[in-house]
């Protein structure tokens, strides 16, 4: 089943850019963030939201279970 990816971008009056990437699991999310950075300029910072870790943790638990 197809998964929804969403990018939310806020551009301030001064031209400062903030982004939020939703629906992309773990490190793939950083790849999308880097791509976005390349398009718009230079990444200042990337912050992982709790869900980033949640999903990674879930995956790790699952992986461990399978092993």
């Amino acid at each position, binding site marked *: 089943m*197809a*998964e*929804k*990816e*969403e*990018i*939310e*971008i*806020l*551009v*301030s*009056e*001064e*031209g*400062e*850019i*903030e*982004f*939020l*990437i*939703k*629906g*992309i*699991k*773990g490190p793939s*999310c*950083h790849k999308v*963030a880097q*791509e*976005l*950075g390349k*398009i*718009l*300029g*230079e*990444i*200042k*910072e*990337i*912050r*992982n*939201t709790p*869900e*980033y870790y949640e*999903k990674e943790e879930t995956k790790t638990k699952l992986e461990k279970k399978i092993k």
Partner: protein
Amino acid sequence: MSAGGGITLIIWSLELLLKTVEELNFLITFKRELEGDRKLKDALKIETKDGNFEKVDVLVENDEGIKIGFQKQKNGQYRIISGKVSDELKEKQKKLIGQIKQRYAYNLVKEELTKKGYTVVEEKNLDKNAIKIVARRWR
């Protein structure tokens, strides 16, 4: 949600920059590369706050005489140069630069994300004149 962060905008595209300033209805926009006349090319200079003159590739000016120059760097980026203005106009000039950067970023986001298969599903003007864009794709 997975990750968020901040990006510093860099102006690379001359085409998009010209489109942006055109949309913002600045009265005068000069572009050095378009002018065939060598004298005109040399004339495209901006007086900085220190009283020096710098050659620029794009010069925009609004109806109040506020000038902003864009100078292409060796790495292809455009450097923004503020023209000399009176103290009363300094805040307005800062706002104009922000306006250009904001509109440029907006145009760039829409153009590039569409190329990558995203559809813009929401566009909103927020408080403090910020713009919000939400783009979505299914994978």
